[in-house]
């Protein structure tokens, strides 16, 4: 029997039992929809996270203390750059994760203070330390201050301060000590550096490291280590731990990227597994409905056999029906899965989380995932749907094929 004939007969049979066919196919559609919704959201989430992490300088490792009593010294930084070959530059910075008040006359703003060695900082973050207005004076004065873009320009477009302006930093140093004021002269305003960075420079003001040291009266509490290549992130982090023998933690964006990728792989696989169960249930549905169908069509199978149909003709007729259900379910499941992903993405975007930590990431964080329909998941889900349909249909189809023709003809 020719394939075309088999499929047109299968199609006619399915159309005959329209409601039943629709419901059976619906099972497959739901399975494929679930898989594709999960995976296209997963892929979209992966892309979003990757994009954000990749926006960090992948070749810079941040060294931070663990616990309150650990600080780094200039010697630590020099030790790192000289001993470890894979390190290009290491620079200490002073940063307190505390909002600081900034005043100019009547105006005030909230910011984060970052003490840096401007020359080294420029080597580590060449694309962050870019001036929109002004420039660094030579030599750098103790009261030099550089404003991040968002500090200088408020959201309403109002200018807080510009080059040459005097600003006052109100500093709460700690304990029961009173708030002290320090005066600075603005030498420059940075270009917008993006808010997604590990150090959100837009919300910060930069002062010379030595000044910060004087204000806080402590050693440095962070080091930025620029690598020869990002691939050394993990090994350099380990080497620094060995070298300094201090409780510290290394934050390496490239390692984060890799680990996040691994976690996302696992989460996605887990969710696909659950969604896959929906498809298996659909398979059981096919098996169930086919078994009923074989019973109902026993006499018909007997007739077909009497006029010369072979076992494999009967087998392929039933498998063709399952294949059509699987194909249709797959085809309809693709747009429906993609649609569901968009709906879920919309639903997720309406849940907003509030984050006031200006150091890591500022302001309001919304989960805006754009679902990505990857060809390999589409193909995978489609093939899986077809295979499940055929596999579950195999048992009833074989039962039909093996029916004894004489008994089938006697069946009422």
């Amino acid at each position, binding site marked *: *029997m020719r394939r075309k*004939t088999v499929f047109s007969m299968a199609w006619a049979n399915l159309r005959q039992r329209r409601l039943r066919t629709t419901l059976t196919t619906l099972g497959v559609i739901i399975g494929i929809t679930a898989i594709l919704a999960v995976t296209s959201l997963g892929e979209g989430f992966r892309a979003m996270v990757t994009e954000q992490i990749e926006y960090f300088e992948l070749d810079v490792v941040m060294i931070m203390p663990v616990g309150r009593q650990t600080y780094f010294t200039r010697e630590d930084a020099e030790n790192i750059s000289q001993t470890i070959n894979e390190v290009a530059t290491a620079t200490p910075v002073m940063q307190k994760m505390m909002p600081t008040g900034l005043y100019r006359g009547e105006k005030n703003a909230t910011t984060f203070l970052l003490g840096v060695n401007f020359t080294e900082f420029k080597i580590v973050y060449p694309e962050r330390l870019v001036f929109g207005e002004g420039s660094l004076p030579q030599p750098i004065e103790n009261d030099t201050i550089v404003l991040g873009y968002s500090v200088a320009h408020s959201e309403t477009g109002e200018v807080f301060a510009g080059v040459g302006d005097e600003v006052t930093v109100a500093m709460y140093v700690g304990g029961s000590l009173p708030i002290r004021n320090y005066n600075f002269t603005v030498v420059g305003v940075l270009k917008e550096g993006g808010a997604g960075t590990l150090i959100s420079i837009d919300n910060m003001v930069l002062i010379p490291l030595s000044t910060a040291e004087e204000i806080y009266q402590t050693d440095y509490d962070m080091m930025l280590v620029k690598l020869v290549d990002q691939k050394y992130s993990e090994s350099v982090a380990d080497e620094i731990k060995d070298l300094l023998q201090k409780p510290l933690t290394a934050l390496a964006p490239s390692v984060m990227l890799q680990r996040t990728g691994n976690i996302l792989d696992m989460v996605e696989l887990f969710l696909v597994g659950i969604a896959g169960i929906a498809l298996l249930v659909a398979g059981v549905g096919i098996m169930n409905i086919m078994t009923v169908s074989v019973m109902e069509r026993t006499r018909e199978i*007997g*007739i077909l056999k009497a*006029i*010369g*149909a072979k076992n494999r003709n009967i087998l392929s007729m039933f498998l063709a029906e399952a294949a059509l259900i699987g194909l249709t379910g797959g085809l309809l499941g693709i747009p429906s899965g993609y649609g569901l992903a968009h709906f879920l993405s919309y639903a997720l975007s309406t849940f907003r989380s509030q984050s006031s930590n200006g150091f890591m990431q500022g302001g309001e964080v919304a989960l805006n995932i754009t679902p990505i329909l990857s060809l390999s998941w589409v193909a995978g889900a489609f093939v899986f749907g077809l295979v499940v349909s055929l596999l579950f249909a195999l048992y009833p189809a074989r039962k039909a094929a093996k029916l004894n023709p*004489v008994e089938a*003809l006697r069946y009422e």
Partner: protein
Amino acid sequence: MTVILEAKDIKKTYKMGDVLVPALKGVTFKVEKGEILTVFGSSGSGKSTLLHILGALDRTDEGKVFVGGIDLSTLNDSELADLRLRKVGFVFQFFNLLPRLTALRNVELPLTLADVSDKECREKASEVLKLVGLEGRMNHRPTELSGGEQQRVAIARSLVNDPSIILADEPTGNLDTKTGFEIVQLMKRLNEEKGQTFVVVTHDPAMAETADRIIYLKDGLIEGIKKGSGRL
């Protein structure tokens, strides 16, 4: 005369749980090309069993069946199906048409199974339907046809692959006398015009008499073979 079909001492016993039901106890006869042979016997005498075995729909327990000289016991299931497709045509008491297909599609089925092209299928099926007098009913479904018309479709279907023999199991058993008579007439005409060989099972003595030869079957054994009148 050419022998088209030969049954040699065929035996068949059914098992109903622990009870053995012997349906055929050793049946031997030949069917010659171009004849109409009726198998006459009361209900339960083994006629249907015999017909199924002759038509390769079932196997014997003992004894052999030859169709066109081929020993059916040497064929596997797939080869038996192929033999049913190309050499044998079946006609049943309850017509056994596929209810969802039109008359034309029902008649096309054996051709479709034999991989005949769509165009040729249509041509041959309509030609055969015309031959049985149903040219005006080709696109009707079985439920839209009378019993006699349905049986004509069944005969057309059995005829469409040019079988060497048509086996009919009480073809008039479900029809009124007049319509049954017309079906017998149709078979006689096909026999005369095309030389079509028939084996017809019946428990109706009048019907049996119209054949060239009559086999009397009783309790799975041949009681006698007699010449029929050959006339209606």
